[in-house]
């Protein structure tokens, strides 16, 4: 549930252009059940016409999120976490609180990863988008990404202590992989 205070912060961030809300074309019978905010540059990357297939995949995942599709989530406490064959939609990374999550695409793209934090139940702040170039090796420094994400949010007066602290409070309509 988004408090009046948080709603105000997001509205202000949207007005100043620091964050934009993910909007999509919905049918008459579809209503938003979740919300995503992201930085302008992430949204612009989504509109890159040279990457139509990638953008369709990301947009489809984000639309499903917003329209309340049931998602599969794996928490950092899950047993057999390394057995990743079931491919969660949302994976809690080994940090936090506040939980830092990776949003995965279906079908999975190992070279493309999205990261974010929850400001309230069903309200996601998409903070980073990481695309690995062909031939690049090495791990993404997720700990640094998380620290950067939290740091960047300070500019819109969102601090770590006001983010959701428990992964199980982040979303409704979730199947947990345990």
């Amino acid at each position, binding site marked *: 549930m*988004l408090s*009046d205070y948080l709603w105000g912060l997001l509205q202000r961030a949207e007005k100043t252009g620091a964050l934009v809300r993910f909007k999509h074309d919905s049918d*008459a019978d*579809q209503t938003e059940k979740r919300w995503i905010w992201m930085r302008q540059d992430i949204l612009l990357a989504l509109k890159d016409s040279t990457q139509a297939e990638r953008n*369709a995949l990301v947009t489809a995942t984000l639309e499903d999120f917003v329209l309340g599709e049931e998602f*599969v989530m794996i928490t950092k406490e899950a047993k057999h976490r390394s057995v990743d*064959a079931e491919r969660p939609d949302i994976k809690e990374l080994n940090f936090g609180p506040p939980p830092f999550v990776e949003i995965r695409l279906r*079908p*999975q793209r190992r070279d493309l990863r999205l990261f974010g934090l929850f400001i309230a139940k069903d309200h996601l702040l998409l903070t980073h988008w990481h695309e690995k170039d062909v031939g690049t090796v090495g791990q993404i420094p997720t700990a640094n990404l998380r620290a950067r994400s939290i740091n960047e949010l300070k500019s819109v007066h969102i601090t770590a202590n006001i983010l959701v602290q428990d992964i199980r409070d982040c979303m409704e309509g979730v199947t947990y992989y345990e």
Partner: protein
Amino acid sequence: MSEVMATDREPQVTRVPEVMTEEQKLLYAARLKGQVLRKLTIAFIDAKKKFGWTQRDIAKRMGVDESEISHILSGKRKNLSLEKIAIYARAMNRRAEIHLIDPEEAVNQKPKTEVINRPFLFANKRPSYLSAVPSSEFENTGWNYV
């Protein structure tokens, strides 16, 4: 949580494009594909919780290699056929069906009120101690009231 008219977040009606762009085609396909894969994964997790079935059990029932199940769930199987979906669903004690939804008809079947996941100051009615406060005081506050 209260039930109020969904006035501030009315959905936009998508018009069917006269000629679909390549981007639209890719998006429609990606959404369906993603949803199918997600539903298969959820069905697998349910079967695992309910019956204790593993990928190996399901693969055995389908007469395929265990890696095939892993490839289906991960989406590595590029062209997942309808036959495969039907068989895979049945192997997990599910029946696969397809629904083509007319949005206009579907919206008529929905209740006129929507539950919005936003806080509301007064769930049903304004408390008596605030009855003297004019309605205009609540405008643009982010709060809804009845």
